């Protein structure tokens, strides 16, 4: 197994600030918008972006939630492991809101398909956008694209993209892992 660094801490920092700016450009004061991190790996990215939006751009009103997709996934009973669920926390109304899904890596698009179904249980959003730190191009199984992309990566199927966050892994970095 070998691994290559795709993004360093400094680059991640620049990208997060750019993504935050893009969100502000489209959503202005976030009165009609909510950010929803996809469990489990979208949560840290969501916290970071929310932090930047609150601290550096003085947005004081921001609705942030977590959405778990486990029960909506299409690989139930098709993978070897039981899929274990995580918490969903959506303490606000999504009806008629602009929802931004946030996840670390966009790969086959199947998680996003599950998220699109899952969010319907909470209401009918006005629009749904997708923000991902890493977009693995040419590997989509479904016609799904991100609205906001941190970095595009070309990786083949037996490679893995790993995102590390300093709050959990003591460093900010993105790796490409080869088996």
């Amino acid at each position: 197994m070998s691994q290559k660094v795709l993004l360093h801490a400094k680059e991640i920092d620049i990208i997060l600030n750019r993504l935050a700016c893009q969100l502000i450009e489209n959503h202005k004061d976030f009165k009609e918008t909510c950010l929803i991190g996809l469990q489990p790996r979208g949560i840290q990215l969501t916290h970071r972006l929310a932090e930047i939006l609150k601290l550096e751009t003085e947005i004081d009103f921001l609705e942030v939630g977590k959405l778990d997709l486990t029960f909506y996934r299409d690989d139930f009973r098709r993978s070897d492991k039981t899929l274990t669920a995580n918490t969903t926390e959506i303490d606000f109304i999504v009806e008629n809101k602009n929802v931004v899904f946030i996840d670390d890596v966009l790969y086959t698009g199947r998680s996003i398909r599950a998220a699109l179904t899952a969010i319907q249980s909470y209401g009918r959003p006005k629009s749904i956008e997708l923000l991902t730190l890493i977009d693995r191009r040419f590997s989509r199984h479904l016609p799904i694209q991100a609205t906001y992309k941190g970095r595009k990566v070309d990786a083949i199927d037996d490679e893995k993209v790993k995102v590390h966050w300093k709050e959990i892994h003591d460093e900010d970095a993105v790796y490409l892992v080869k088996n």
Partner: protein
Amino acid sequence: MSELSVNHLLGIKYITEEDIQLIFKTADQFKEVINRPIKKVPSLRDITIANLFFENSTRTRLSFELAEKRLSADVVNFSAASSSVNKGETLVDTVNNILSMKVDMLVMRHPQPGAGVFLSRKINAAVINAGDGTHEHPTQGLLDTYSAREKHGDLAGKKVVIVGDISHSRVALSNIFALQKLGAQVKVCGPLSLIPKHIESLGVKVEPNLRKALEWCDIANMLRVQNERMDMPYFPNIREYVQQYGLDKSLLDSLSKEITIMHPGPINRGVEMSSDVADSDHSIILNQVENGVAIRMAVLYLLASKIKSYEN
């Protein structure tokens, strides 16, 4: 730990503490699901479940059926009263006929202890025991401990007394196993004629005095007197039972501490407890019923995930 150690849920005796914790963790998520505006998830959309009830049930059957439907499973119901069992068909034949119609899971209540275990050895489908005679009622044991945990936090070291007809109660046995696996101390209380002779071999103490038992415990689980299972009189009359083992508000208020009251239902108001106790803030009876659906969804989900799909 992300997988159950068993392929069937036949009794709490056969599962581990890790299994119980995994079921609880999954049930937490399903509890959130059933409190949403849309209470349904698509996980079990390609699973068919047969509910086989060879004995009467309202709550358990409704609870299982709701759990199955909220997981999007296809459901067929069967009750012995209207079936060919009355024409002399054996259990295995009945079930194999149902399975030929491509059923993946069975939820079964049966008057014979061990019916679930027997069936799981004979047939090729996941079996969930919804009560087998006086033996076990595992989902009830799980939902009782889950509800107690919700109120009291970790059950390790907590004191629980099970009051009433222990001999005829499958709820008692499943509760004892579940509580002990989670580290709680268990006592039973009731007329000695309704307490199994060798119950102490399970590590359970017997306290024949209700007041002493209640003073000792954090949680009291009041069981129903199962008149329908009594082939002979076990106590002189109901009035005497109520005097000695009925819980009323004045007894509850005279205790030196606040305790939580549970009951698996259906309640005989005025027998095992008075109405003002059943409806008081101490009682978590209706929470138990709500949690029952979440627990059964978790059990169904975790067992279904062990049935491999056709491509495997």
